């Protein structure tokens, strides 16, 4: 087996060939691509439904689940899935205005982190797994994990395809959707379960604490790029994809973590779109929009 080159070259094609030569990078790119796809699609709806805090909360509940799994010798992914799904279904059952229940969600979130900390301290072994759950360890993804992610991605995309229109309708106009006979509770639970699964797999790439960079930032940026949902979802996916790929490539040549580059890229791109691109574009269409764009809505 020959050793793959790892030096940076000015020729991009050589770089790509070099990176693809390493099997750990291949796994990382495959897992990252699948994750970006599901995070981009679900993230659009997380933002549209103002569920960012909710999604964050059950990634933390997932952390408690994962820490428990490490302690019990189970796969952390199983713990993540169980934790985030319990959190997601619980929040969906809280009711239709659950996304506004910041206080209750915050209380559960804090307790979950505490619980996770307890499990970590009880686990006397190697702490690297905990670090991976919190901050992501995409470079350590195994071919089996890639396969698991692929299965999850297919399930999530099919699920989102089935509930696409009712979910969009209920996200934009809850009252009318309910009056039209949509099963709001079932729809809420279905969406939360999909997000819980998506979060659990995204955690492999970015970790519990940085999962927002793939779940929320691309979706939020896409809202400024397109006002037709199908196009905005496409934009959200593309942002997540390019951020992941670029993050992996940069981190290949530097000693710094992938998660940092992904979060940095999507954040930078968000700032550019939000404050430069969107303003220039909307100003051209309607001069009043610039003034009406709220910066601080609490004041």
């Amino acid at each position, binding site marked *: 087996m020959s050793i793959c080159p790892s030096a940076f070259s000015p020729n991009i094609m050589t770089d790509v060939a070099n990176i693809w030569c390493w099997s750990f990078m291949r796994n990382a790119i495959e897992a990252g691509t699948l994750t970006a796809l599901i995070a981009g699609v679900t993230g659009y709806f997380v933002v549209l439904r103002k569920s960012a805090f909710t999604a964050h909360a059950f990634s933390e509940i997932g952390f408690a689940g994962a820490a428990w799994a490490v302690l019990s010798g189970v796969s952390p992914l199983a713990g993540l899935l169980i934790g985030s799904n319990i959190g997601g279904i619980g929040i969906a059952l809280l009711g239709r205005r659950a996304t506004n229940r910041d206080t209750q969600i915050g209380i559960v979130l804090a307790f979950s982190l505490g619980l996770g900390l307890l499990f970590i301290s009880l686990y006397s072994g190697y702490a690297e797994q905990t670090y991976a759950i919190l901050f992501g360890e995409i470079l350590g993804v195994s071919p089996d994990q890639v396969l698991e992610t692929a299965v999850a991605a297919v399930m999530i995309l099919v699920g989102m395809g089935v509930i696409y*229109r009712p979910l*969009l309708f209920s996200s*934009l106009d809850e009252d009318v959707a309910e*009056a039209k006979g949509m099963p709001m509770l079932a729809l809420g639970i279905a969406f939360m379960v999909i997000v819980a699964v998506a979060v659990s797999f995204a955690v492999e790439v970015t970790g519990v604490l940085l999962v927002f960079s793939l779940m929320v930032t691309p979706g939020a940026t896409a809202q400024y790029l397109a*006002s037709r949902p199908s196009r905005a979802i496409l934009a959200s996916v593309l942002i997540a994809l390019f951020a992941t790929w670029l993050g992996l490539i940069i981190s290949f040549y530097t000693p710094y973590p992938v998660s940092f580059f992904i979060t940095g890229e999507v954040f930078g791109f968000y700032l550019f779109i939000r404050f430069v691109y969107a303003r220039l574009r909307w100003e051209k269409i309607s001069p009043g929009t610039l003034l009406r764009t709220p910066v601080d*809505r609490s004041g």
Partner: protein
Amino acid sequence: MAEMFAESVTSEESELIKAENLAAGYEGQALWSGASFSFGKGEFVAILGPNGAGKTTLFRVLLGLLRPMKGRVLMFGSAPRRGNPHIGYIPQRHTIDTETNVECVELVRLGLTGTRWGFNLSGDDDRNAAWAALQAAGAEGLAHRRLGSLSGGELQRVFLAEALVSNPDILLLDEPLSNLDIKRETELLHLVNNVVRTRGVTALLIAHNINPLLPHMNKVMYIAGGRMATGTPAQVLTSESLTRLYGVQVEVLKDPHGNVAIIGVEEHHGDIP
């Protein structure tokens, strides 16, 4: 005799909404009771009454979202059911999030096909229907505007298009005029009135101020004191009728232009202009 018979037949046929001795409320407490009314095709009805009298509750009963506590209600001759596509509904709401960056025509499309499962690949049918509805609501110019950027009056026109897109026979409009200035209020009322007249739609509209509605209304339903009075504006908007309803002395004043002012209750629903 024959004439009476003929009249009763036509009224039977045209009764889209009919209630007998109806009572509704929450947690065993009736907000109103003993309500009997019927509305036919093409009638434009104003629903008035103080806050908390149960105007929205009436809509919830008609939509099949709330079971009546007593009595019988028929929509199109059968019990109300949730999701009836023949009913268009604009719920009471104050704003839409200013950060909602979705174009209006998408919301209107969802009014027609938002209840269908699966992804829409072609989507031309609902797009055409959405454009027709936007046109009927005088909102075709708003089609590609973002929902979050609309003013109150613009938003109400988009909501009207969303309600009209399924070609309903009944429109339930919950305070569509609130937060609109007089000019926008008049514009929206003309639009709704136009829809009622040209499409033969039966519209029930909850409002706080009766005066802008008076030129368009066929009937008025006044809910207060746990009861309701229904009839023509001339029958309902009198000192006697409203005094009976409120149980305290109420005075209805009329100015030479036909404007109405209701004196003696905390909230006066007919502000003198």
